[in-house]
C-alpha cells in the first residue's frame, strides 16, 4: 500500500513536469502579451505528429525531432503574430475578445490541417519503453526523460528572463508596454519574438510528450485547456507558480486515475480548472500577471 502511494506520488510529480512542459509556451505568451493562444494545444499536437512522421519515415528519435518541430512552429508563430494578431484593431477588453476569437479560428485551422496531413487516428512513438528501478519502484524511462527536459526548459527560460538583457527587455514589456517603448524597446518585435518562442515551445513539447500521451489531430482543445489550467493555477504568467501548479495537477491526475478511473481523471482537469478560477483567480502564489 505504502509502495503504491510512493509510486503514485513519484509518477504524479513526473507527470507534473510533462504538464509544465506543455504549458510553458502559453505561460510565456500570456505573461508578456496578456493573450491566450487558443491554438496552443493544436501546436503541441502538430509538433507531436510531426515527430511521428520523422520517426517512422527517417527513423529520427523524438529527441532529434524536438528542435525541428520547435523551429517549424517558431515560423508558424511568427507568421500568426505578425500576420494576424498584430493587425487586430481595438483596445482593452474588445482586443482581448478579438484575439480569443482569432486564435479560436486558428485552432480549427491547425487541427484540420493536422487531420489532412496525418489522418484522424491516435498516434504515438515507441521510445524508451523500459523502466528505471529506484528502490523497488519501477519508473518509466520516457516519463523520466520528459520530465527532466521539462525542468531544463523551465530552468533555462527562467534564467533567460531574469539573467540576460534580452530576457529583461521581455519582462519589461510584460510589466509595462508603454514604459518599455519609452525606453526605446521595439515592442512589436518583442511581441513577435515572444509569440514565436511560445509557439516553438509548444511544438517542441509535443514532439517529446507524444511518447507518453498518444495524440490525434483533434486532441488540441483538451491540451489547450489543460495548459491553461496549469498557468491559471500558477497565476497567469508566473513562472514559479506554474511549476507548483503543474506538480499539483500531476499529483491530482495520478491519484484520481488510480482510485476513480481514467474518465474521472479526464474530467478532473476541467473541474480543477473551474474550481481554481472561482476560488483562487489570482493563482496559487497570488501575484498574477508577473513574468
Amino acid at each position: 500500500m505504502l509502495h503504491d502511494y510512493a509510486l503514485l506520488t513519484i509518477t504524479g510529480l513526473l507527470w507534473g513536469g510533462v504538464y509544465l512542459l506543455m504549458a510553458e509556451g502559453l505561460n510565456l505568451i500570456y505573461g508578456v502579451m496578456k493573450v491566450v493562444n487558443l491554438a496552443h494545444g493544436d501546436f503541441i499536437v502538430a509538433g507531436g505528429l510531426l515527430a511521428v512522421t520523422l520517426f517512422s519515415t527517417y527513423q529520427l528519435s523524438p529527441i532529434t525531432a524536438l528542435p525541428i518541430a520547435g523551429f517549424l512552429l517558431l515560423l508558424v508563430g511568427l507568421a500568426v503574430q505578425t500576420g494576424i494578431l498584430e493587425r487586430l484593431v481595438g483596445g482593452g477588453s474588445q482586443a482581448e475578445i478579438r484575439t480569443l476569437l482569432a486564435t479560436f479560428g486558428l485552432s480549427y485551422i491547425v487541427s484540420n490541417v493536422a487531420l489532412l496531413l496525418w489522418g484522424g487516428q491516435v498516434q504515438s512513438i515507441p521510445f524508451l519503453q523500459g523502466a528505471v528501478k529506484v528502490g523497488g519502484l519501477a519508473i518509466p524511462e520516457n516519463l523520466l526523460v520528459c520530465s527532466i527536459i521539462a525542468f531544463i526548459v523551465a530552468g533555462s527560460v527562467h534564467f533567460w528572463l531574469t539573467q540576460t538583457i534580452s530576457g529583461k527587455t521581455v519582462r519589461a514589456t510584460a510589466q509595462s508596454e508603454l514604459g518599455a517603448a519609452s525606453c526605446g524597446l521595439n515592442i512589436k518585435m518583442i511581441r513577435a519574438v515572444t509569440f514565436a518562442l511560445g509557439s516553438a515551445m509548444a511544438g517542441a513539447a509535443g514532439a517529446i510528450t507524444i511518447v507518453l500521451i498518444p495524440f490525434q489531430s483533434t486532441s488540441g482543445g483538451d491540451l489547450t485547456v489543460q495548459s491553461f489550467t496549469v498557468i491559471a493555477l500558477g497565476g497567469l504568467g508566473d513562472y514559479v507558480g506554474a511549476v507548483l501548479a503543474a506538480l499539483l495537477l500531476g499529483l491530482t491526475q495520478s491519484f484520481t486515475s488510480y482510485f476513480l478511473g481514467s474518465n474521472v481523471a479526464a474530467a478532473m482537469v476541467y473541474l480543477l480548472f473551474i474550481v481554481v478560477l472561482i476560488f483562487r483567480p489570482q493563482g496559487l502564489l497570488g501575484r498574477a500577471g508577473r513574468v
Partner: protein
Amino acid sequence: MKGQVSLTERVPKLEVVRPVTTGARVTKTFAAAEWIPFAIGVAIAVTIAVRGNGYVVQVLTSTAIFVVLASGWNIISGLVGYVSFGQVAFFGLGAYLAAELIVHFQLPWYMAAAGAGVGAVVVALVLGTIMLRLQGIFFALGMFGLARIGQIAATSLDSTGGAMGETIPTTGDSLQTALTIIGVACGAVILTRVIMRSRFGLQLMAIRDDQTAAKGAGVNTQAVKVAAFCIAACLAALAGALYAWNIGYVDPTSAFNGTIELQTILMVLVGGIGTMWGPVVGAILISLINQVLWARFPMEQQIILGSIVILVVLLAPGGLVSMVNRFGWARRQPVWAPPPALETSDEVAAPGRTGGTHPDGALRGVSLTKRFGGVVAVDDVNLHAESGQILAIIGPNGAGKSTLFDLLSGFARPSSGKVHLGDRDLTGLNPHVIARSGVARTFQTSRLFSSLTVWETVLLASSSLHESRKTAVAETAKILSKVGLLNSWESFPERLSPGQQRLLEIARALALHPRVLLLDEAMAGMTPQEIARVHAVLEHAVAQGCAVVAIEHVLPAISSLASRVQVLDFGKTIAEGVPAQVLRDPLVIDAYLGVGE
C-alpha cells in the same frame, strides 16, 4: 462668489425643451420596414417546408436550428459580452434530456423539448451563478471545459448508450418537424428583439460596456447576467432537443460537437455580434456556404470556417449588419424612445423620494478605514453629509479621496468603520443596492456606456429605480432637459464633448433621485459654461434637499457653493470647516500647495 452667482443666473434652471424628433420619425419608419424582410423570410421558409424535397427541407431545418443556437449565443456573448466557447454544453444537455424523456419516460416530443428547455434553465441557474463570476478568457475556457465535462459524462452514462449513443423513435412527419423548428427559430428572433428593446436589454448592454458603471446606475448586474445566461442556455437546449428529435439519434460526439460551437460563433460574427439581425443573417449565410463546403471540400471544412472567423475578426469585426449600419440601415433602435415633449416645468418629485423631508437623510461615514496590504489608503475618516448642503472633499493626489467614495458607495468594503444613510446601515451592501437606496455617484475617470445613447444612459438609471415605464421615461426626459442634453438624446458618448460627457454622468446619477450625490472630480475638463450648468443643477438638487459630496481638484469649481470643506492627506482628515477658514489653514496650505507658500 458673486461672479459665480451671475453665471448661474444666465442659465435658466428649468428649460422647456422639445427634443428633436426628426431622427425618431426615421427610426419609426424603419421599425415597420424591418418586419417586411422578416415576414418574407418566414414565408419562404414555410414554402420550402411544404414544397421542398427531403434534402432542401433538411438544410432548412438545420439552418433554423442554428438560428436558435446563434440567437442564444448572441444574447450571452454579444449582448452581455461574455464570450462562451461552450454553448454547445447546453445544446448537448438539451439533446440528451429530450432523448431521455422520450425514450425512458415515453413523453411526446413537444413535452420532451419543453422539459429540456426547463432543465437547461435549472442547470444554468446554478452554473451561471458560479461561472459568471469569471470574466474574459476565464469564462470562455471555463465554458469550454463544461462542454467537455458534459461529453465525458454522456460517454460514461450507460442508460443513454454510452459512447455509442441511442436511437430516438421519430414521431410526426417531416413537414410537422420543419414547421415546428421554423416556429421556434421565429420565436428566438422575436425574443431577441423584445430583449433588445426592453429595460432588460438595456441592462445587458450596459454590463457589456462597463460593469462597474452599470452597478453604479443601480443595475443588479449578477442577477441580470444570470438571467441572460439562462435564456441563452434555454435556447441552446431547445435547439439540441429539436436537433435530436429531427435526426432521431443522439450520441456524445455529435451532441457536444466542437464544430457546432465553431459554426455558431462564426454565424454570429459574420452576421454581426450584438446586433438584432446578425444571428439570422449569419446562420442563413453560413449554412448555405456550409452546403457548398460539404459538397466540394468535405475534408477542408474546418480550415475554411476557421479562416473566415479570422478574416471577419481582422477585416469586419462588426459583421455584415454593422457594415449595413454605416448607411443608417438596420441600426439598433433606442430603447423606449423617442423622449416625450416636455409640456411644462412640471416639478413633480418622484414618488417616494422627497429628499428634503428626511430629517436624518444625511450620509455618515464613521471611522472608515481601508487597507490595501500594508498601505492604509483611508485612515479613520469621519464624514458627515448634511441634506441640502454641499460638502467639498479636497486633497492632493493619492490622499484617499476616491477610495473614500468607493467605501461610501459600496464599490469597496471598509476594513473597519460604518456607513449610514439616515437610520439605515449601508456597510457591506452591494453597490446597486446602495445606488437604489439613494447614494448615487460619478466616477473620477468618465465611465459611460459606449454603445448606449444619451437617452438610454439616463433611462438605465431611471428605470432601475422606477418600475413604471411611463415614470422612467418622463423622469429621463426631465433630467436630460435639466442638464441641457435633451437635444443630443440620440448621440453616443463618443460624440459628446468631455464636458458634456461629465454632464451625462451627473444626469445618470441624478436619475437615481439621490438623497446623497457623490461627485468625483465631476467638473474636470469642463468649460466655464458647463461648470455654470453643473452649478445650476447642483443648486437645484440641494434646494430639493439632496446632500452633495464633491471631490475637486480645482478649488474654485466647488468652493463657491460648498458650505463645508474637508481636507484629506495620506488618508487622514487634516482639516474641516467652512471654506474660507479651511483654505487659510496653514496645515492645508502645506499639504496642498507644498511648503514655502
